[in-house]
């Protein structure tokens, strides 16, 4: 294909790959980026909430031309049972600030924009090209990649594996394992189109204000899972995800659960009359800190979802991806500027810088959460939501029962379902995992 040798090859033009390619190209490195999709974003799926700060660090003036949908002023957390939801809503006028903190985005459009920035920074971007294999020299150093295009392998001093959660190259080379079913969630998602004014009316929003709902409870039928609804300008992203291991154990169909979520009496009116224009599916890394593989080696680094750098508790992925991509790009630029080889002894700089960032610190904080939710999923996602709904209904409904009897009934229901010891140990374990 090309006889040129590059300073770096970036595999993937998602959040992490674009951040890495942009960072290196804007520092003068000769960068080739490969993307298997027809255009960047054509293979990518996300909710999607964009956290402004991490993009701002890379492209300070992104608000001037990035395709942003709405800036978020309200967040709702719902615990659902079959007929009700108990919710916490946080809405603040403070979020109507000159440089908003969070936006909704549509990945296909956003990734195209980000990729344009990467090209403008000077990188060569090759789409419709699947990298099929890493090329190693006799000493085990990665010296390039093979692609599905005819021709010789392409060579570079270092390869940045930004291939996403289901990356082939790093796993085929034996640098990391394919994620285990209990370390990834399968999410399905639909795009529901509605007129802008209708979305504004239904969610109490004006202009480009946005609102998001995140929901857990019986909607996942006892599996560890989450539903979400994000408002875009003229559409609503609606999705639902559970651990692959739970899907396999229960044999539940993801689209049946998505349909049930849509038909929930709390969700149905929000979507009434919408036109569905896309149905998508994607994995989300959920293994947390303990699932992070080796992140650098002889001539290679891993960034983003491929390295399981995803905070499932806070549903943050793209900002960890962007930040790890940026840091890898910075580390490689530093090594290059010092004229040093791209071996593990120097590329360890990337890991050292990443450890100091919020990426690894946040993941470390929740290191015990995945295991807790996995082993206790029936309590957290089935029993408690039902109990909470009963308790709330008991509290709200006025029917002549003395209040003291109502309280006793509520306590008794919790104890009956989980036993005092069970409740106590769940609470303690949750607190410890959250610490």
């Amino acid at each position, binding site marked *: 294909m090309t006889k040129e040798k590059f300073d770096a090859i970036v595999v993937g033009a998602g959040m992490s790959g674009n951040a890495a390619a942009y960072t290196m190209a804007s520092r003068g490195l000769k960068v080739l980026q490969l993307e298997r999709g027809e255009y960047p974003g*054509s*293979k990518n799926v996300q909710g999607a909430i964009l956290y402004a700060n991490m993009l701002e660090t890379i492209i300070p003036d992104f608000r001037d031309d990035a395709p942003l949908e709405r800036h978020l002023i309200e967040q709702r957390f719902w615990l659902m049972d079959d007929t009700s939801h108990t919710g916490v809503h946080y809405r603040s006028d403070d979020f109507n600030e000159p440089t908003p903190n969070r936006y909704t985005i549509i*990945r296909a459009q956003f990734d195209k924009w980000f990729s344009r920035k990467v090209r403008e920074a000077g990188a060569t971007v090759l789409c419709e090209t699947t990298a099929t294999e890493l090329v190693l020299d006799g000493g085990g150093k990665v010296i390039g990649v093979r692609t599905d295009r005819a021709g010789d392998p392409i060579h570079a001093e270092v390869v940045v594996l930004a291939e996403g959660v*289901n990356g082939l190259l790093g796993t085929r080379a034996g640098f990391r394992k394919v994620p285990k079913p209990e370390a990834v969630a399968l999410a399905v998602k639909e795009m529901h189109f509605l007129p802008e004014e209708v979305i504004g009316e239904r969610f109490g929003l004006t202009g480009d204000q946005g609102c998001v709902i995140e929901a857990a409870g019986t909607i996942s039928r006892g599996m560890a899972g989450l539903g979400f609804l994000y408002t875009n300008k003229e559409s609503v992203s609606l999705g639902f995800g559970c651990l692959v291991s739970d*899907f396999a154990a229960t044999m539940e169909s993801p689209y049946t659960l998505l*349909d049930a979520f849509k038909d929930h009496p709390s969700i149905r009116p929000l979507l009434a009359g919408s036109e*569905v*224009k896309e149905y998508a599916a994607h*994995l989300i890394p959920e293994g947390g800190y303990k699932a992070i593989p080796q992140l650098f080696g002889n001539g290679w680094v891993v960034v983003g979802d491929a390295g399981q750098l995803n905070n499932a508790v806070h549903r943050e992925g793209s900002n960890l991806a962007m930040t790890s991509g940026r840091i890898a790009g910075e580390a490689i630029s530093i090594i290059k500027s010092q004229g040093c080889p791209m071996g593990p002894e120097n590329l360890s700089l990337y890991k050292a810088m990443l450890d100091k960032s919020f990426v690894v610190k946040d993941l470390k904080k929740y290191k015990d959460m995945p295991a807790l939710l996995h082993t206790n999923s029936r309590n957290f996602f089935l029993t408690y939501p039902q109990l909470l709904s009963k308790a709330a209904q008991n509290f709200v409904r006025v029917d002549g029962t003395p209040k003291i009897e109502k309280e006793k009934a509520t306590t008794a229901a919790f104890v009956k379902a989980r036993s005092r010891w069970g409740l106590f140990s769940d609470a303690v374990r949750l607190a410890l995992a959250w610490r």
Partner: protein
Amino acid sequence: MTAPFVRIEDRLYQNRYLVDAGRPHIKVRPHQSPSANLLALTRICPAQCYEVNENGQVEVTADGCMECGTCRVLCEANGDIDWSYPRGGFGVLFKFG
């Protein structure tokens, strides 16, 4: 709670695909009776690409595949399936993602 029944074909019909005719990117290893994980795919593949044929074996038709990787995570390690990405440019093409 009665969910509205949306057929998988109607859902996938919304999506754009460029099928690489004659070059399926996923293959099921020939087997007599399917493993539990392989059987699970007939229910949990979000595009319903996996089906049990009249002989009780699991078959894959990857045309509607959204390349999520769920089947790879469940069935690659034990050799039930061969999994790859489609050639560059082929496969699902999300308009929104």
